[in-house]
């Protein structure tokens, strides 16, 4: 079993507060949310409930992190070759 600090253990057991998306809704919105984040827009306002879901669901949290990291590492369209 992983050793938790008390705060981390509480967070894991109780999850985030407030309304949140389901995993299916999260997957549906993830690409839009990440692009808004990378564009510096208010992604949390545009996709209410996403932040709480990402805090509560370890798997969706990982998917979000991966998509954001990968898209950020890709050349921006205007920097690459025109398809």
């Amino acid at each position: 079993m992983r050793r938790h600090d008390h705060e981390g253990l509480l967070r894991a057991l109780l999850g985030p507060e407030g309304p949140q998306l389901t995993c299916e809704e999260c997957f549906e919105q993830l690409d839009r949310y990440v692009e808004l984040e990378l564009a510096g827009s208010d992604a949390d306002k545009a996709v209410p409930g996403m932040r709480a879901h990402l805090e509560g669901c370890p798997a969706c949290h990982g998917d979000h992190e991966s998509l954001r990291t990968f898209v950020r590492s890709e050349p921006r369209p205007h920097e690459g070759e025109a398809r």
Partner: protein
Amino acid sequence: MTQAPAVSVKNLESGSGVGEKSAHPDVPDAESRAWVAALRADGPRRDRAVAELHELMLRAASFEVRRRGSAFPHLRGGDLDDLAMQSADDALMALLGKIDDYRGASRFTTWAYKFALLEAAVNVRRRAWQGRELPLEPETWELFGGSDGSSPQAAAEQGELFGELGTAIAEQLTPHQREVLVAITLNDVPIDVLADRLNTTRGALYKTLHDARQKLRGHLADRGMRIGAETAGEAR
């Protein structure tokens, strides 16, 4: 002979730059429209678009299996390459089945990458946990006691809080809720792996986890117990 790219937006529309985000959030940019048109076409044009898309998805899947796979030393390079290819293949099939769902809320490639990354992450976790017994019970409940070095009063409050949590987990949750909560939050079992073993879905298990957490919050609120800076009641 060099073939023209399957997906080209050159001269598609005047004033619409490649990759330029559409002014309307749900109208795809020119490159994304070109992808969708090529994938909906017939014959060699579609074949080339599918091949290019597979290449993109394989790149995303390879990124993900290496990123995730580094946590599992028993997965070797060849295993990771196979997992990336399998993930790209599966993700491509999933995407092509949902092409009509693409609404242009993001660039087409971002939309495509999420399929590949999800598939790769799930496949790595499945492979890493293959043949392992899932810990569905806590090794010890002692973690609900003790102090983290704070003041005696804070330590006493924490002790009471975790004591009530332990009671709620044991008495308020259904066996299924307890199993899911303990496996995911205390024993770090990946939710997709647990879903496979229980023959259900990530979404269904997360709903179970959410319901269990609500019960724990409710139990604490009924006793007027504080969670961090707020009371459980305010957090409901």
